[in-house]
């Protein structure tokens, strides 16, 4: 600063503004002041307006009875339950469709992405047409379309499709399945299942150490599948079928008993998954294409077969490209689930952000709650994905 041609002392302005470090501090202080002023005046404005309308800011309404019904609730709920309970039902419904959607869209997306790169002309073009159709139509239309197909083209209750001789039924009111009642002996089946998983894990470890010691490769995948399916089945038969099935039966206008997957859930789940899968497929394709072909060539030149080349060389590197945009797709899916309100799936937006809001008039409080809930869900997803991304990051110089 001082070693310039001018001998005069630099002015205060010049000191603060022409020095790289000082300028950065000044800019940050100014930005902070503007932010505090902006949000402060917003909050102040809201408080003044609420007072003028004679309404305080309080979450006490959450304890009042909600007095509306929710058809899908995984925790106890009736119209006499509180708004808080309705909110929890909504949160669980949102999480259910988001998690189920993330799982299905990931499986579909990776499959489609790999098919899109297939050298088989028909497979390649089918995947292409599917992806381009699905991702270029708004997701709300997919939700309405699939819901419409389920509600309008599936038979009514009286003509419900009968699956597996009276055990399950499909109608426009959903998929009705038998629900299990577990007898005491079932714990042995459960134990066998857990035991099989532990066995598979131990077997995998054993196979790895065996390979490290002797080079022998064991069929880990097939042995694990066999154990995880086989052991519980054997235990199930040995303990004499310790499950009582409660079958759905037609009583009056609808099926009673058993478990049901409702058309609203089905439509939302399928639409979100199919839609997001198209985007994930493109991410996967981009990720695999981003890996230099030289990697595949080097691996194959060493004599590694095609599947090993994919698993050991291409996919581990492609994941680094795929994971960051994949997190965005998961976030989109979780937030798009709020479109549930269009078909009456009672998620968190439809319960606390919809009916509860309208009944109590507590718009500010309800919106803050709903936003906070989506924020927590989204931050959790990105937190998990960032952790995963960090773990697989490349080491550069």
């Amino acid at each position, binding site marked *: 600063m001082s070693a310039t041609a001018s001998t005069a002392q630099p002015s205060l302005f010049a000191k603060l503004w022409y020095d790289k470090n000082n300028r950065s501090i000044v800019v940050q202080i100014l930005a902070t002041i503007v932010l505090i002023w902006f949000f402060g005046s917003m909050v102040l404005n809201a408080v003044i307006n609420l007072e003028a309308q004679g309404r305080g800011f309080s979450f006490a309404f959450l304890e009042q009875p909600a007095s509306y019904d929710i058809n899908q609730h995984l925790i106890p709920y009736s119209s006499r339950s509180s708004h808080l309970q309705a909110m929890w039902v909504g949160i669980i419904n949102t999480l259910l469709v988001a998690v189920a959607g993330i799982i299905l869209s990931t499986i579909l997306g990776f499959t489609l992405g790999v098919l899109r790169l297939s050298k088989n002309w028909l497979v390649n073009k089918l995947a292409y047409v599917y992806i381009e159709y699905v991702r270029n139509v708004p997701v709300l239309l997919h939700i309405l379309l699939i819901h419409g197909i389920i509600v309008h083209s599936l038979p009514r209750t009286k003509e419900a499709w009968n699956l597996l001789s009276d055990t399950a039924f499909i109608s426009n009111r959903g998929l009705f399945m038998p629900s299990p009642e577990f007898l005491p002996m079932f714990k042995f089946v459960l134990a066998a299942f857990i035991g099989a998983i532990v066995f598979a894990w131990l077997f995998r470890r054993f196979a790895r150490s065996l390979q*490290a*010691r002797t080079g022998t490769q064991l069929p880990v995948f097939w042995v694990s599948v066999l154990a995880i399916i086989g052991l519980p089945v054997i235990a199930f038969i040995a303990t004499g079928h310790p499950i009582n099935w409660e079958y759905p039966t037609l009583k009056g206008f609808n099926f009673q008993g058993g478990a049901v997957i409702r058309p609203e859930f089905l439509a939302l789940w399928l639409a979100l998954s199919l839609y997001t899968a198209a985007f994930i497929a493109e991410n996967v394709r981009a990720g695999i294409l981003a890996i230099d072909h030289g990697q595949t060539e080097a691996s194959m*030149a060493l004599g590694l077969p095609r599947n090993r080349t994919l698993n050991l060389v291409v996919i581990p*590197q492609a994941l680094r490209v795929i994971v960051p945009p994949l997190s965005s797709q998961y976030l989109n899916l979780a937030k798009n689930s709020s479109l549930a309100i269009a078909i009456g799936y009672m998620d968190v937006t439809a319960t606390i952000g919809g009916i509860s809001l309208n009944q109590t008039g507590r718009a500010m409080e309800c919106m803050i709650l709903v936003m906070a809930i989506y924020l927590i869900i989204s931050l959790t997803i990105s937190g998990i994905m960032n952790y995963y991304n960090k773990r697989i990051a490349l080491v550069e*110089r």
Partner: protein
Amino acid sequence: MNESANTVSSTERALGESTIELRQMHKWYGEFHVLRDINLDVKSGERIVVCGPSGSGKSTMIRCINRLEEHQQGDIIVNGTELTNDLKNIEAVRREVGMVFQHFNLFPHLTVLENCTLAPIWVRKQPKAEAEAIAMKYLERVKIPEQAGKYPGQLSGGQQQRVAIARSLCMSPKVMLFDEPTSALDPEMIKEVLDVMIELAQEGMTMICVTHEMGFAKTVADRVIFMDEGQIIEENVPEEFFNNPQSERTQLFLSQILAH
């Protein structure tokens, strides 16, 4: 370059059987006829340098030998196995034929040691400890055992190419193919790679090198092959090739690359 290597020229060494045979081999890229009637017989222990202008089909030819490229006509026989669509045969050939690429193609997500042990463990089914011991042996031979725990991104180009050579050697190949191994390197790194290649040649490895390093060709090659427009134009021992080139095309090429 190491002139003493001349003491082991082909005339004084007994060469073995044919390891690689290319017979009337043709290849097209769509309409483009890249390789025309290639005939080449490489004996075990023989060192061949392939040169020629860019686009002449040198790389394509050696990439056909381990089927990274498919030929459409003629026969390629490697270690007695004919290359066809049979995937098992292709994998068998690739196990015995090492390849070093212009751009190294190391696996960036694996350490240097893991790069070297990946194929021995999964293809040769070697125990990990044994594979690592072998890998360390070859890393010592290419003079970078101290880099074993690092990732390729942390190494210089010359070091990466030496790792790539060690990675190929870990499969104990019968033949090594070099596809312009020094073309992507800074001048001062070329020597360290060439030194490793010369050492390998002196130990009797069968090698086919596509390279413009004429010094290397003079030092170790048993035969120099000159290619242009997909054809083998000339083929001779290095002394004759450089001092007394037969075809006009070869003379022009040599005058251009040796002019400076």
